[in-house]
């Protein structure tokens, strides 16, 4: 099932931070669309505004100016609770530092997003956790704590957690930043596989070889898009 309208549509997004008397313009007018099945790498040096952009796409932050259409809804003026619902149901986050809760098992880490959802009945939880863990090939590790797993495995648990709600997009913020290059390539191959199965992926990175795993690369510089190309 493909749709014509983009999943994500950013229109002239600006973000200004006020620091005392001075203001700092992190994003100076960003516009781009991402369609279902896209694998977009957003690349830029530190200070280019890519983290700010990621926070806005992930609805953790709101733009100072501009319009954000997500899944045909203008979410620019959404309340905090409505945005939490969007994050819960439509966006799967994967972070550089994994962010698993260390004191609970893999199973309960993957369960967490469902705890904050009204959409999924308790009876469906177990099935969904097992299927997400199966996707990342970790179904035999569900009773382990994160301290008993390798870096690559931990990131795969985080991906399972991002997948468990069956979101519209996966938002990965430097997902390989804490991994060695071999594991990094494994994880990126895994993202490619997910994308082939139809998941829309937005990847934030500062490494060109990681960005190259995507189908399309957007390069940011000083809060503006300087390049938007399809990867050959």
């Amino acid at each position, binding site marked *: 099932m493909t749709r014509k309208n983009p999943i994500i549509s950013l229109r002239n997004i600006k973000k200004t931070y006020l620091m005392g008397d001075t203001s700092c313009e992190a994003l100076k007018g960003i516009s781009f669309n991402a369609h279902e099945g896209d694998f977009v790498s957003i690349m830029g040096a530190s200070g280019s505004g890519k983290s700010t952009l990621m926070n806005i796409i992930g609805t953790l932050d709101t733009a100072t100016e501009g319009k954000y259409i997500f899944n045909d809804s203008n979410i620019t003026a959404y309340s905090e*609770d409505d945005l*939490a619902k969007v994050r819960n*149901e439509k966006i799967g986050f994967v*972070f550089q530092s994994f962010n698993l809760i260390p004191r609970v098992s893999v199973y309960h880490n993957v369960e*967490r997003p469902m705890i*904050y959802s009204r959409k999924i009945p308790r009876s469906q939880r177990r099935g969904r956790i097992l299927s997400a863990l199966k996707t990342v090939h970790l179904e035999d590790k569900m009773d382990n704590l994160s301290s008993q797993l390798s870096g690559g495995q931990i990131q795969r648990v985080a991906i399972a957690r991002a997948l468990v*709600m069956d979101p519209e997009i996966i938002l990965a913020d430097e997902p390989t930043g804490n991994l060695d290059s071999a594991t990094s390539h494994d994880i990126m191959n895994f993202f490619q596989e997910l994308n082939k199965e139809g998941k829309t992926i937005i990847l934030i990175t500062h490494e060109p070889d990681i960005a190259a795993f995507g189908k399309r690369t957007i390069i940011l510089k000083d809060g503006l898009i300087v390049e938007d190309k399809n990867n050959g």
Partner: protein
Amino acid sequence: MSFFDAFSISFSSLRHNRLRTILAMLGIVIGIASVILIISIAKGATSSITSEVSSMGSNLLSISPGSQSRGPVQGGGNVETLTYVDAQYFKNNSDFSNVSAVSASVQSSVQVIGNGENMNTTVQGVSANYFETQSISVDLGELFSEEDENFYSKVAVIGPDVVSELFGEGADPTGQIIQIKSQLFRVVGVTKAKGSSGMSNPDKTVYVPVTTAMKILLGQNYVQMIQLSLSDITLIDQTTEEIKQALMERHGITDEANIDFNITSSKEMQETLSSITSTLTAMLAGIAGISLLVGGIGVMNIMLVSVTERTKEIGLLKAIGARRKDILLQFLIEAVVLTITGGMIGMITGEVFSYVASKIINIPFVFQLYPILLAVGVCVAIGIFFGLYPSRRAAKLNPIDALKYE
């Protein structure tokens, strides 16, 4: 987020930091346990005092000499305003139909010699029916009679402690002679052991007829107390007033401000005692309550540490869709679970300690539901009150800053 999920998350987090959880709980445990212990002991003491007072007879009116308005010398034995004739007046007067028995008494601390032994003790001169009004019964021999009172007989009824001290444990002293203030008295009876009632010890008292005590032993014509037994306790206020008016007339007093006697009822005494004990209880429970407050501050402290420590986790929870109120609920439940668990342990500890204490100090163990309900309520309140600030702090965290927190 459902309550069930919030509870299970809270439990897992409290279990994870076991030592910290136990230490935070300890403040609540000590607070609740001491409140329960104090209330329970106070209740036990009150019921023991009350039953002692009522064993004296709850239908008694006591008239003692002295003024109500003349400072601290109240009920002083040396005030010479109450006479034996006053007592006789109430006894032989059909106007006071509610008065069923009248007993006058005097007392003095003297040396008593018998069987070659001597002891210092209280000699009480009492009317023949004093024993009845005080529920004192005879164990050996007999009590003295009204006739003994009328004829100034030198007879004595002695308490069991006096028997063991002068004649030896279990001896039968009836018919023996004892010497009180160089006068010889014949022992006619021994009272049944009754136990000390705080103010006096009837087991260690020598009773002689009040007339004999006044005339022969003490050389005085006033009495220290007149006690009246009432047949209908419900008319106590009316009878008290009648007696007051009659005594005022007898003593030639027209102004109530110059009144030279006090009338107290044992009911009044019970009320006074129970008001004293409840004030004491409230005070002690208040002090114990302070330790609960300190425990609550401990819980707040731990919750603040926990929030700071889990800042990054809170950021993650917000990123995966937790709303402010989900975070608030989760931390609040954690605080309440902490205080309620502490409260439960405190309650059990408090009840066990109260039971042990009641056995040691020999008062009845009183189990009551209301301190327990109160404790549960207080624990929930403390958990919410002291958990609210840390929980709100967690809920208000900005997810971007929280995720960056190291």
